[in-house]
C-alpha cells in the first residue's frame, strides 16, 4: 500500500457535487485517491474499505440508517467521517459524524479540514537502507535466524525484528529469496555467496 496516498470515499447521490468536490480535492495537489459510492451498503462491501482515511458522506444517505452507520463507523475508526452538508439536517444525525464540511466552504477550508490526515513523508518512503539494516539483511540472506543475527551483531532480538520490518517496508520485498536478489543487485552480497 502506497503510504503517501490518501484514500477518500465519497457517498453522495449528486454526480455534479461529486465531480465538483473531486476536482477541488485533486487541485489541492495532495495524493488523493477518490472513490464514489451510491449507498452505505456499497461502501461497507467495498474491498478498499480498510484503506480509506476519509469518508465524505451526504447525511441523507444515513438518515434512516443511523444504527448501520454507527456500526460501520465503529468498525473503521481509522476513517475520518465527514458530513457533507448543503441543506438543513437534524442535529442528531450530524452529531454522529467526526466533522462537517459545508458545501459553501472554500477550497482552503476543505484543505485545512482534510489536512488533519497524516501521510507518510517522503523520508519515510525512502528506499535506502541504513547501515545497520544492511548488516541485518546480509546476515538474513545467509540464512541466519533472528536469534543468530542478534548474537552476532550484539543487539536484541526485538531490534532485529524491527530492522527486518523496516527492510520489508523500504524494499517492498518480503520473501527471503526476493531479499537475496535485492541484496545481490545492490551489491550487498556477492553472487557467488549463494549456492544452489
Amino acid at each position, binding site marked *: 500500500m502506497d503510504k503517501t496516498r490518501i484514500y477518500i470515499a465519497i457517498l453522495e447521490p449528486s454526480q455534479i457535487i461529486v465531480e465538483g468536490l473531486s476536482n477541488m480535492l485533486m487541485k489541492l495537489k495532495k495524493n488523493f485517491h477518490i472513490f464514489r459510492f*451510491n449507498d452505505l451498503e456499497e461502501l461497507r*462491501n*467495498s474491498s478498499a474499505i480498510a484503506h480509506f482515511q476519509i469518508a465524505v458522506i451526504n447525511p441523507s444517505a444515513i438518515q434512516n440508517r443511523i444504527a448501520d452507520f454507527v456500526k460501520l463507523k465503529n468498525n473503521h475508526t481509522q476513517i475520518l467521517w465527514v458530513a457533507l452538508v448543503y441543506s438543513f439536517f437534524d442535529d442528531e444525525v450530524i452529531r454522529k459524524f467526526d466533522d462537517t464540511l459545508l458545501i459553501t466552504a472554500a477550497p482552503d477550508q476543505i484543505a485545512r479540514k482534510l489536512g488533519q490526515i497524516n501521510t507518510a513523508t517522503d523520508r519515510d518512503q525512502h*528506499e535506502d537502507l541504513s547501515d545497520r539494516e544492511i548488516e541485518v539483511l546480509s546476515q538474513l540472506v545467509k540464512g541466519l535466524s533472528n536469534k543468530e543475527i542478534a548474537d552476532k551483531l550484539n543487539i536484541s532480538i526485538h531490534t532485529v525484528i524491527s530492522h527486518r520490518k523496516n527492510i520489508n517496508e523500504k524494499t*517492498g520485498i518480503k*520473501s527471503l*529469496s*526476493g531479499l537475496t*536478489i535485492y541484496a545481490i*543487485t545492490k551489491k550487498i552480497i556477492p553472487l557467488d555467496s549463494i549456492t544452489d
Partner: protein
Amino acid sequence: MYQTHKTYITSGMKMSDLIIENPSLLFLLEHFEVDFAVKDKTVEQLCTENKIDLPVFLIFGNLYNGFYPDEKEIAELNDISTIIRFLKNSHRFYKHDKYPELKYFIGQLHEKHNTEDILLIERFFNEYFEEVLEHLDYEESVAFPYICRLIEKGRIEQKNDFSANEYSDHHTDIETKLTDLKNLLLKHISLKNDFSLRRKFLFSLFELEFDLNIHSLIEEKILLPLVGKIETRAANG
C-alpha cells in the same frame, strides 16, 4: 488516478456494457466458460444459457468489480459445484496460459540481457512457479476431491490431508512472492531499453496478480466457509 465509478453488477445488466467498463470481467467469463461474444444478453440470460448459478456469478462478478460479498450472501449460496468448476478452470488458466506466458517473457528478457539480475529473476520465477504448481496440484488432488465427495455423499469420509489453514498459508506465500517480483522489477532492477517486452511482462504479471487475489478470496472466504457448514451438518446428521 481518478476513479469515481464502480458498478455493482445485478442480474438485469447487459454483460457487454459491464465488460466495456471493466475488461477484467473477461477472466470471469473465461473461467465460467462463457463465450466472449455476449451479444446484447443480460447477466441472467447468460447464466441461464450456460447453466451457471446466478447468485454465484453475481458474487464472483462483483469481486472482479471490487465489491466483497457479506457473510449473509455467502451463506445463502448452495451451488458448490459451480464454484469448483470455476476454480478448476482458473487453475487451467494459470498453468497452461498465464505462467507459460510469463515464462516466455522472462526467457526473452534473459536472452536480450544476459546479466546477473535477470538470471536471478528467472531463477526466482522458476522456483516460484514450481511452488504454485505444487499448490494447484494439492487443491486438485486433495482439496477438490474431498469437497466433491462431501457434497455427493453428504457425510465426511476420510479427511485425507485436507486442511483449511494449510490452504491459506499457501496463498499468502504465493501472493507475497508475486508482489516481491513486481517490486524487484519496478523498484530495484534497472534495464536499458526493451520497453515493449518489459511492459508486456509487467502487464501480464498484474493480470495474474489481480486474478489470483480473487481466486484466493473465493477459496478462503466463500468456498471454505461453505464446506465448513456442510461438514458441521454432516457431523451432526
